Every structure is written in C-alpha cells, then in structure tokens.
C-alpha cells in the first residue's frame, strides 16, 4: 500500500528484469528467453503435460501455455491470428504442416541438436526446406480388442492382406484419409508399395470388410477400446498407449507399414521466437527424446541412440529393418495427388460404404458356395464381380497429372480453369454406385448357380 504510485505490473516487471539480469550472469544462454511460450497442439494431455513440465524445469522463467485444438481448428486458429500468433505448432499430421507452410505461416529454422537421424525408414524426418521438424516417429498398424477377437473367434491379424479375408467382414474400422493425415500416408504407402491399380484393389477389398470410416483419428481407437468393433487401422501410439492404460488391446505392425514423423514448427511472426527455438531443441535433446518412451506416450524417438534405454520389445525402426523400410516413399508423388487421393477414397469407400459392404458380402458368400460346389460359369461371374468391386475409376497417369490433381486444390488466381472437382467427384460416385450394384448382382447370381 505504501508505494501506490507505482503500478503493480511495473514493480513486477522491474523485479522480473532484475531476476533476469541476475540469471543472465549465472546462465547467459537461458536468460535470453522470453517469459512466455504459447504452443498450439493437437496432442493429448498425456503428451503435453510431461513436456511442458520438463521444459519449464529446464528453463525456469519461461511459462508454457498449451492451447489444445484439433488439427483443423489449430490450422484455422493460426491462419486467423496472424497479427499476434502463438509461437509453436505441434501436431502429428504432416498435411497440416504442409498447409501452414504453403500459407507462409511457418518460420524456417535449423535445429542444432546432435544425433538426430536423417530418415526414418525411407521417410525424411525434417522438412527439406526447414519449416518443420520430426521429433518422434510413429507407424501405422492394426490394433485389436482381445476380448472381442476371442468372443468372435477371429484369427489374429498380421498383415494388411489379412484384413481382406472374409472372416473379418464387419469387424474393422479406419479413419478417413481425408480426415487424418496419418491414415492418408498409410493409404498412399499401400498405393506406392503395390502400385496404383493393385493398391486400390487392396484398399477396396479391405473397404468391403469395414464397419466404420470414422471422421476423426481418435474415433477408431475409441471404438476398439470400447469393443464396438474388433480391429482398427490406427497409428501405433493409439494402440500402445491404450494397452498401457489397461485396455484389453494389442497392436501389430504389418510388414508394409509407413513409419512417419510427428512434427513441430515455429509459427511465422512468433512473439517468443527464442523460447520457441529452445522448445524445439528441448524436444530433440536426450531429455526430450526420453519422455517419448513413457508408456502413456509410446512414440518412437528420432534419435537412434535413445533406444538403448527403451524397455525390451520396444519397436526400433532404425534397427528393425522390417519396419517401414520396404517401401521407398516418394513424397513428391504423394504431395502432388494428396487431395485427389483423399477425395477418391471418400467417393469409393467412405460415402458408399453400405454399397461396398453389400458387394463384398455377396462375393464372399458366392465364393464360399463355389468352394463347396464348383461351378465354372459361377466362378467366371465371381471373377467379374471382384473386378467390378475393386476397380479404380481413374488411372495413375491421370491421377498424377498436374491439371487433374490441381482441380482438387484450393482456388488460386493462376489456376487454369479446367474440369472442376465436383465434376470428377460426381463421375467417381456414379462409378462406385454402378459397379458395386453390378458386382453384387453378379455374385448373387453366381451363388445361386452353386446351390
């Protein structure tokens, strides 16, 4: 009450300066950091809390503020707050970082932390132009509910190809690639590994068995954890952390998995750039990488040396050559057709799931009947039904064609007016509806012949 003349904040600021100056003498590197660090992230509390705590312990004087957003809301937020943005964007989805980078919303940086690998599998860990950096790796795989699998007498899945089997009909969930950057990479990975036509055939045949195409990534592990369906195509830490939290689930990596980095980047115009850089360095330091091994987090460090401390059986993509290295991932190819592949998957699977299910159910039934009682003509019909239910309506050359893929990208001034997204989508939707209906009719006919 005595020095009412000085506003409180000024007294505090003066004190802060004094403290900062004092620290400056003791630890010059740390004293330069700002007092705040605003991080926008899609990660759960299980991930953000240990990091915020550890970072604040390592850099006393910096207050970390975490803004939880789903990826969409996060991107929208960064875009709309350009005048006074948060400092760090921290999320899994590589596509979100691509969008931010294209919108010139990220700031380039070169992390100094030593010992970080260049690539995980065949996937480069950092953005080649230095706008965002991988701090952890994750691979896609199959998560299953052990109680569900036992009660429904299902075999344990091991490979993507297993998911095509009729026994899994109505037991599998996935999130739509258009809704989940990591599912997108899995789809693209299958397409690159098996080739465009064969890859789509696999995706559509698995699609026939799907019970749900979720609109959010976490919807799939949520449903498997509850036992609503038995198998989910998910990213590893969803499975591993659910298991660590006590749910009766298991997780397997198939051979052809994509191991992809989860990322962090500095937002352009960040108000606390030094703290932001320090946070990235912290994520990549030994202390930061070690936190990833926490069972509730369960992500793969990008610093190969860290696996020495990992518990036995912890997946190591740098040593275990089966993980993620079989496919040589072409990210330029992937980037060019990103939106197109998403839209195509939605037309062929997400929005026509009912029809796709019906077609494959009929094919499975017909094949089972034919296996009991052979019928040459019926077998021919089933082959045709299979072809119809697994054909993609656009060939690879067209999909990679800049003008066609461009129709799915945002409106811009220099875009040539050509065919519109809506026109392609209508054609693909019609293709899916017609083909699936015909496939079902043929398979039903074949089944009748085998009676």
């Amino acid at each position, binding site marked *: 009450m005595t020095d009412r003349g000085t506003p409180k904040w000024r007294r505090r600021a003066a004190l802060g300066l004094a403290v900062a100056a004092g620290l400056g003498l003791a630890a010059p590197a740390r004293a330069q950091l700002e007092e705040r660090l605003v991080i926008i992230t*899609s990660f*759960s*509390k*299980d991930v953000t809390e240990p990091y915020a705590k550890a970072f604040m312990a390592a850099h006393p004087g910096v207050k970390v*503020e*975490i*803004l*939880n*957003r*789903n*990826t*969409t*809301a996060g991107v*929208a*937020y960064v*875009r*709309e*707050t350009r005048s*006074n943005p948060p400092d760090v964007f921290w999320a899994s989805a590589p*596509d*979100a970082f691509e*969008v931010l980078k294209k919108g010139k919303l990220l700031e380039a940086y070169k992390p100094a932390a030593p010992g970080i690998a260049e690539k995980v599998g065949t996937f480069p860990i950092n953005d080649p132009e230095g706008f965002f950096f991988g701090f952890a790796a994750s691979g896609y795989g199959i998560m299953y*509910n052990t*109680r*569900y699998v036992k*009660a429904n007498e299902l075999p344990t899945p091991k490979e993507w190809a297993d998911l095509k089997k009729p026994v899994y009909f109505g037991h599998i969930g996935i999130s*739509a690639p258009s*809704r989940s*950057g990591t599912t997108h990479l899995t789809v693209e990975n299958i397409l690159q590994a098996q080739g465009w036509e064969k890859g789509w055939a696999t995706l559509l045949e698995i699609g026939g068995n799907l019970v*749900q*195409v*979720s*609109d959010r990534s*976490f919807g799939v592990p*949520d449903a498997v*954890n*509850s*036992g*609503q*369906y038995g198998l989910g195509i998910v990213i590893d830490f969803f499975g591993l*952390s659910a298991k660590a*939290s*006590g749910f*009766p*689930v298991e997780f397997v990596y198939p051979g052809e998995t994509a191991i992809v980095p989860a990322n962090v980047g500095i937002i352009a115009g960040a108000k606390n750039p030094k703290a932001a850089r320090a946070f990235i360095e912290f994520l990549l330091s030994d202390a930061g990488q070690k936190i990833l091994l926490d069972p*509730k987090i369960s992500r793969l460090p990008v610093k190969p040396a860290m696996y020495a401390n990992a518990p036995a059986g912890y997946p190591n993509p740098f040593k275990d050559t089966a993980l993620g290295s079989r496919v040589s991932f072409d990210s330029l190819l992937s980037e060019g057709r990103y939106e197109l592949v998403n839209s195509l998957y*939605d*037309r062929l699977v997400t*929005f026509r*799931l009912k029809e796709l299910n019906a077609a494959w159910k009929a094919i499975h039934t017909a094949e089972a009947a034919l296996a009991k009682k052979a019928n040459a003509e019926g077998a021919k019909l089933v082959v045709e039904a299979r072809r119809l239910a697994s054909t993609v309506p656009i060939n690879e050359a067209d999909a990679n064609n800049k003008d066609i893929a461009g129709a799915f990208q*945002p*409106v811009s001034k220099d875009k040539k*007016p050509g065919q*519109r997204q*809506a*026109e392609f*989508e*209508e054609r693909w*939707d*019609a293709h899916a509806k017609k083909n699936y209906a015909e496939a079902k009719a043929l398979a039903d006919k074949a089944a009748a012949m085998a009676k």
Partner: protein
Amino acid sequence: MVALEAPLAARRVGLLRRWGVSPAQLALAVLIVAFLTAFLIVPVSRVMVAAFEGPTGFTLVHFGDFFRTSLFLESFFNSLYVAVGAVVLASLLAVPCAYFLARFDFKGAGLIQALGVVPLVMPPFVGAVAMQLIFGRNGTVNLLLNDWFGFRIPFMEGLNGVIFVEALHYFPFILLNLSASLANIDSSMEESAQNLGARGWTLFRRIVFPLAMPGYVAGAALVFVKVFDDLGTPLLLSQTNLLAPQAYLRITSVGLNDPMGYVISAILVAFSLMAMAASGLITRGRDYATQQRGGGGLARRPLVGWRKTVAWSFIILVVVLSLSPHVGILLLSFATVWSFSPLPDAFTIKHYATVFADSAHMMGNTLLYCGLAATIDVVLGVSIAYLVARTRLPGRRLLDGLVMASLAVPGLVLGIGILRTYYGVELPGGVPLATFWGMLVIGYAIRRLPYALRACDAALKQVHESLEEAAENLGAGKLTALRRIVVPLITGGMLAGFVTSFATAAVELSETLLLVTRDVDAPISYGIYVYMQSPAGRGPGAALGVIAVIVVALGAWFSHRIAERERLRRGRGGTA
C-alpha cells in the same frame, strides 16, 4: 429553421405511427439489429463468401454443382427423412409426458421436468462413447440380448438409428415448450368445454391441444431444424450421407478452403428458413390468446387406478430410454476399464479426484458463460418476439428469420468468423476482443438464440394484446407494459428458453475450441475435449461430463421451482 423542422418531426412521428412503434421500441429494434449484424451477419458472411468465389471472382457455379451432384441430392432427402422421422418420434415421447405433467398431480413433477432437460446435455465425445457402450452393437443392451436370446437390435445403425438417437436427444424441445404452453391455457376454456359435455380424449383433441398449439409447433419446428442441421449424431453413427455432415466434413478438412462445404451450409440455412416459415403458417391467422389470466394452466386431477399405472409406466420408459446414455456416462466416470462387457470391470473414484485437482475452475466458467449466454438469449428472445408480434416495423419477419438461420450455422464457421473479424480489435490491456471470454458468451448466445426466441414467441402468442392496451389506457408506456404485464405472463416460456439455451451451451465444443485461448478461461466442454483425446483420459472426461449434466439439471430444477412458484402466485394453485 424551426418552420422546416416541424414538418420533419411530424413526418417522423407519422412514420412511427405507421409502423405502430414508440420511439423506445424503435431504439430496441435498432439495438438488436446492430447486435446481430456485429456478431452474426458480419462474421458469418466473411467466411461464407467462399461459396461464391471462383478463379475469376464471383461465381454461382458451385451452387450449380450442388444440384448436379447426386450424392448431395441423396443426402438432402436423407436429411429430410431423418428430420421428419425425428419429429414424429420425439412427439410420441414428449406430448404424452407434457400432458400428464400438466393434467395430473404428480409427486416429483419438478424432478421429471428437470430430467426432461438432461437429454439435451450430451457432452462431446463422452456422450458418444457412452451411447455406444449402452446402445451400440456391442453395447450393454445388445451384449445382454445376444447372451440371453441370441439376437441384437440395431439401435444405432442406419438412418433409423439416427432418428432414434436424435429423438431421444431433442424431444425436450417439444416437452419444454409444450409444457409452458399448457401451463398458460386458461382453465375457464376447459371448464366451458366440460360444461358443454366434453370429456377425456375429445376435450384434449378439441380444446387443450389446439390451445397449446403454439408451444407444440415451436418445439416441433426446433426439433425439425435442429435435426436437419445436426452433425453430432450422424457422425457418431457414421452416417455421412446427410447434408450437415457433408458440409462439415468439407469445411473441416485441413485446408479449410473447399467452397462446396460453404455452399451446403448456405443451402442448409435457406432450407431451415423455409421450414421455419412453413411452421409459421400453421399458427398464422389463428388466435391463441386468451384475455383472462385467472387460472394458471389446466385444472389438475389426482391420478388414480389404471391411468396412474399407464402414466407412470410411460414416463418411466421415456426417462429410462432418454437417460441411459447419462447412466452410461456415470458408469464410465467410475469405471477402471469398460470394454466389450455389459458393465465396467471395476469401479474407482480416482477420476473425480483428477478432475477436481485439474479442472475445478472449469465448472465456474461453464456456469458463468452459459448463464450469461442464456440470459442474453432470453432478453433478446422476448424483445424480438415482442417486436414481431406487436409492431408493424418493416422487416420484422426478416429479423425473426435471421435469428432462426443461426441454427444452421456451424459453430466452426461462426468461430472462424469471429476470429477473423475481432482478432485485430484489442481491448484495453492488449487482449484481442475475439479471444476475450466474453466473446465466447456472445458466440454461445448467438447460436442458441433461436431456442429462446421460439419459446418466448410461443408464450407471447397466448397473451392477448388487450391486456397491454388496458395497461396503456391506465397510463403505462410501451416498455412499461412489456415489463410489467407481458413479461410476467410469459415467464414459463422464458424459462423454457433459458433452460434450453443454458443446457445446450454447456456442451458446445466447436466454437469453444476456436475461441478459448487460456486454460483459466476454459469451460467444461473444453476440458472434456482435452481429456478425451487419450485412452487414459476417458474416465476423467466422463467425470467432467457427469458434472456438466449435474450443473444443467440443477439449473433446470431451480427454473422449474421458479416457474411453479409463479404459477401458484398467479393461479389458484395445484389442487382444484
């Protein structure tokens, strides 16, 4: 100068007279329009403009594409089917309940009314998980059915599953509005009919229900539009081939610049407006107002014999059905692990400990934000309903329509619009206006204003203008008459509006996710979101969900108490 001003002033007065407004009413109208322009029209237009942008500027080609895309047309008819189905099923649940409550003496009527609000409180994510754990294909009900009888009921599959869940979720709109209307019927009407020999079903069909029509239509119209525009339930059931999810999936794709999403939103808005206009036609040209204010509501009778059994069985059935998800949330909040089994493996209270340690401040925030938002809604709702019903201001129906249009505005669109419009505006102290917590209150209020408006409008339809005229003859001004005569007569409708706005705002997520920037400002729904992103957070998330439900149920129970006290004060009491 004086000579010039006089005719001008006279002309002004002439205009006011032609519009049938007093200067105070005109000022009120201007204020409301300014508020809606600032926080609804401008922000939403700034986002929706994407629907009209082509490579070379303005274009309508995207609207053409909408009608050329068979998936969208299919989605449109699916949405229509679901909305109509939900209105029918919700009416079957709500109308008997409202009638029993208004007609008979019930022990615990207040409790039932409070429970009647709870279905509206479906906390984000937790509600979905609990719903699946109870009614899903491997939920409690189906696991037991399958064990005992070897079959399952697809409650949550296909379009009919959407109808089932939506009806359970939104039937309170009808229950609340119809109850308010029934409570406003003058019992002398009923007595006259009885004197003429009408009994039972005839009495209900010819007298009671027609007089309560404004409330029913208000509720049913809300259910229709809300279900038509809803995306939570369809996404929960993975039914993507409906209009609202089609719009949502496109708007929320990571790039955020697909014009088709905004086109679909614009079409949703237009169709919702048409539906509201059509519902207006049902009650237009009829007079529901009664002049006497002697008896508050129907004469209540004691409930005896088989009627009692039937009434109680029905009400219990509705309560059990509609509260099962909430029981699910309760179980989940005490569960260790609950997976592929009828009940959780074991119980614990540690989730509540976590929540109270981490997130206690969120409860206060929710109460504050939602209470303020619901208050704004009721004030605006009464004012707009009053201006529409009692003046001839040009464009007053447009104002009504504009408010209703906000039902079809996705939260994300309003959130982005508010950020875009107000992030650059700084409050003293340097906080951007867009991320000041008051903006969250306004955002909640804008999207829930339709509930309050319909409720107040329905109540006002039952008040005869002659009551205000009498007050004015005694010397009261327009606003005094509004405050002293109209408002006390429509308390029931206002409370129904308050409760629906409050309950739905308590679980709002999409705006919240954009506008909350500091943990200390976060409401419960944000806390639930944060927890529900990891398997370990399921229990604490559910615990917060339970707290949200309790907060709303208490709010509803208190409002019911106030309404009942008002009824007793005005009328001749519960027993006649």
